[in-house]
């Protein structure tokens, strides 16, 4: 189920950077036990004003997976996000991103 979960999480974008939360390396860990999902998330910026929206979006994309009963999102404040967490391909995309 994990690969399906990751594919679904790719549907949650960061509107400013144009990358999704998987590409940005925000997904630290996914735990799955008998249909109960727990997603550990590292915010790119502590106190990110979109954190509430991102949490709801994760619930929305994961709860429609067959067999998933509950979804829990845990923000990992003990793990600092840094640019090194960005997927290498996504990093190239970011450096080539054009002005809006």
């Amino acid at each position, binding site marked *: 189920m994990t690969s*399906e979960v990751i*594919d*679904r999480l*790719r*549907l*949650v*974008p960061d*509107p*400013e*950077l*144009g990358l999704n939360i998987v590409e940005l390396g925000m997904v630290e860990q996914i735990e799955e036990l008998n249909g109960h999902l727990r997603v550990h998330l590292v*915010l*790119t*910026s*502590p*106190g*990110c*004003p*979109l*954190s*509430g*929206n*991102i*949490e*709801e*979006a*994760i*619930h*929305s*994309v994961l709860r*429609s997976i*067959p067999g998933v009963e509950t979804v829990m999102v845990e*923000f990992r*404040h003990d793990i600092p996000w*840094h*640019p090194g967490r*960005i997927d290498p391909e996504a*990093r190239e995309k*970011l*450096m*080539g*991103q*054009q*002005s*809006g």
Partner: protein
Amino acid sequence: MNGKVQARPALTLSFFAAGFLALAGGVLTVALDPAILTGPYYQPKLLALAHWLVLGWLGSVFLGAAYQLGPVIAESPLRFPLLGWFHLALHLTGLPCMVYGFAAGNYHWILAGGVLVTSGCIAFVITQLATAQASWRGDPVGCALVIGWFWLAVTLGLGLFMTGNRLAGLESAPSQWLRIHAILGTTGFFLTVFNAVSLRLVPMFAVTTRQSNARTWTSLVQTQAGLLLVAPASLLHFSPLLWLSGLLILSGQLLFLWEILAQLARRHRQLDGPLNWFAGSFLWLPLAMTGLLLLMNRTGLNLTMLEPEAGAVLVFTVYLLGCLTTAVLAMSFKIIPFLVWQAAYGRHLGRSRVPPLSSLVHERLFLLASTGSTLGIIILVGALSEQSGFLIRTAAIMLGVGIGCAMTNFILSGRHLRCPQLQPLNFPTA
């Protein structure tokens, strides 16, 4: 702490709207009467315009942004949001009273307006302190913000003190207190907050990290040490202390600039138009701080052959318009679209395909806004050096075009609130 920060876009957007209207009004005033900016700074119309722009434009935007950025920096939801609306009401009531008082030379109106604006700021500080208290981090950004509020309180207190003195007939202007009030208000509050906000926003938007903690702390300590010396040095008329104060502020800001440039050099993102414009605002900073140093020491600004009193207008134009206004205008192309996007699409995230944030910035309007404003400010600085009314008017018109384009962009982005551009989200098949 649950990690979720509840945003207050309506409150921040209302402060921004007030700020942009104040800026447009101020620029229109200069275009109609360019003579306001020529001659010495101590004249009723210029004092009125200075307060209108500093409090009405920069004050509204900085305070409004704090209602959004304060919770982000404190990593905690905004406490007592109703106090924020109360603050806005007091700010919008007090400011016109104060400005009318300055223009008419009526200190009763100035005092009444000042008390209202100060009361609003007290409400602001309560919300910010309560928010920061929940999860305050003693890093340079957190410390600088709290120090900025301290300077805000000092500036407002000094303003009320001087007005009270004038009403009691105890003081004949301009006094050393006025210079201290001007320097601590514009530099103590705005510069400290500008440093804090930049140190937070540059890593966020440019996808980079702090490059040197030691440099960041030293910059803060040096700048604040310089600011703390402003009042005693000015009151004692002690030249070595004035030089020391100005040099500490200048060197602190050069360290800040070094840190920002180092962060930008290590960025992981190509800068877009607004971020490039924002980065450009830092180029004005060393010029402005050097001007402040010369002004504090009354060296006559020989390069421009201006008297120190007229030089003050030039220095504060370089600083308040060149550096701070450029930074705010540029960053408003990030913050306002973000707030509108969040209000329009935040709840649809993960349910529908939503447009990127960049779609809320119209490229042509942005180009006109950035080009018009930048050229307007550069021409204005030249016009003040030459004391040319014609060039001041030309600069005001160009600046007005730039501001108008920025405001048009923000109004147009409001269409997303009325008609969100949503598309179905296609879930991948297993």
